[in-house]
């Protein structure tokens, strides 16, 4: 059901737009289970031949695993690779367009899926996995490899002092570019009937960001980089007929505002009904779940 809308049009929401940018967690699925109404909404979008592009900050999944989830959980077997954009993919494309692939390397703080994504684009990287503590003598002798020109920092369960220090040294001694694929403050995992809030990617970046002087390069939502990148790589979108659907005000809605496109907030994930009136800017639509676009 649509909870509130800024629109005065009589048309159903689905008829007003040609392109739908859709967040995944909390909108289509939560912890690998379909969100109520998601299957219905996607079927309708496919039937109406709308362009559907998944835009997720979650770089813990590869594109192929998301394609598989679309098939197994939501019955959509053939979403093309180019219409599945994770912050990992967006980072890989950012790097591919800028780095000297032969000579330059990336220091990567992330999970396995991110590593695989960079491999797909032929980007040379290292740093994945646990890293033992180095003492002050070892740090004094540590040689900074001058070919490391990029430092990518995302969620990493193994992130520790050693990785923090190594990243810091590449940024300060090599003037390496510091890239943040996503800056989510919290993630939610299921806990009984409800959810448990746990520290997100921002907590991995906090110490490093405080120590270096220059601001990092943002890739994921709410930065409009992904919106511009999709058009540069795959062709223009009709901004006036594009709708961003997501469950987070800070990432999804602000992304929509930054891109100058329409916005729809669903209440099936992060955002709760009580949060809505406190927003500094109201999304165009607020709905219980994504099936609200059929109203």
């Amino acid at each position, binding site marked *: 059901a649509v909870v509130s809308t800024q629109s005065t049009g009589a048309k159903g929401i689905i008829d007003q737009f040609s392109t739908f940018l859709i967040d995944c967690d909390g909108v289509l699925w939560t912890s690998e289970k379909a969100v109520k109404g998601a299957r219905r909404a996607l079927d309708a979008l496919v039937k109406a031949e709308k362009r559907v592009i998944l835009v997720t900050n979650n770089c813990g999944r590869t594109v192929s695993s998301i394609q598989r989830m679309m098939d197994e959980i939501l019955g959509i077997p053939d979403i093309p690779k180019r219409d599945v954009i994770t912050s990992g993919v967006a980072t890989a494309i950012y790097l591919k367009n800028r780095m000297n692939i032969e000579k330059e390397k990336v220091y990567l703080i992330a999970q396995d899926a991110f590593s695989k994504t960079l491999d797909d684009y032929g980007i040379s990287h290292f740093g994945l996995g646990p890293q033992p503590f180095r003492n002050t003598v070892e740090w004094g002798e540590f040689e900074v490899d001058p070919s490391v020109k990029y430092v990518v920092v995302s969620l990493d369960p193994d992130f520790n002092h050693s990785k923090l220090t190594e990243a810091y040294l590449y940024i300060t001694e090599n003037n390496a570019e510091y890239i943040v694929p996503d800056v989510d403050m919290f993630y939610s995992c299921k806990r009984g009937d409800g959810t*448990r809030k746990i520290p997100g990617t921002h907590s991995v970046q906090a110490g490093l960001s405080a120590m270096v002087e220059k601001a990092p390069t943002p890739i994921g939502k709410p930065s409009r980089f992904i919106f511009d990148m999709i058009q540069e790589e795959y062709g223009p979108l009709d901004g006036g007929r594009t709708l961003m659907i997501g469950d987070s005000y800070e990432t999804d809605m602000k992304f929509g505002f930054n891109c100058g496109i329409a916005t729809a907030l669903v209440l099936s994930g992060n955002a709760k009904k009580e949060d809505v009136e406190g927003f500094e800017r109201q999304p165009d639509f607020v709905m219980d779940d994504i099936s609200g676009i059929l109203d």
Partner: protein
Amino acid sequence: PPLDTLEKAVVSTQSTGPEERCIYSAGVACAMYLKHQLKEGEKIFLMGSNGFSSVLKECGVEAVGHGVHEPMDLHSFSTFQPDPTVKFVVGGFDPQLTHTKMTKAFIYVREFGAEYICTNQDLVCPLSSSRLLPGTGAVLAGLTAALGHTGKVIGKPSPIFFDIVAREHGITDKSRVLMVGDNLLTDIQFAANSGIDSAVVYTGVTKPKDVTESAVKPTYCLNSVAELL
């Protein structure tokens, strides 16, 4: 560092050994603070070095969580069950603090109401004139960001550290106390926060021009501790 290391360093510079405790690291101060706060059977969740862990043991504070944690992906946290006897989360310089370990600390504080204290929040510690290393503040920054606060800082520049030491030694006349240190942000700020006089020495990180540019001013400026005589 562990207490016995500190004590050996002090004993080697003087002719007689210390009779009462006269060496306080921020870790020792935390241990003493906790001793007065914890009830029988209550424990802490520790993010700290092996040195900190042994200091806590010596003071009879029981800790869980110390050391290396198996990495957990986000969804494994659905089933994480904290130890219900944990009443404090304690943060120090932890070479083994990973995002996984830090998430457990967050859950103890946010969901289970454990009180969060830390030894200090120093962002960096200089390795050499050109290379800086992350300090405790940088290591704990993720937890600070997630909680929205640093927790109660026990070490310098917090006056809590002074209260602990003053109580142990029966110090009541603050006008007769002098803090001597090389760091304006920790040592001299600590003196200012505690209401005592301070002397900065130029044998460490601070040089005269830093004092000129600093908002906090020491009572005295010395080239070295030898000038106390």
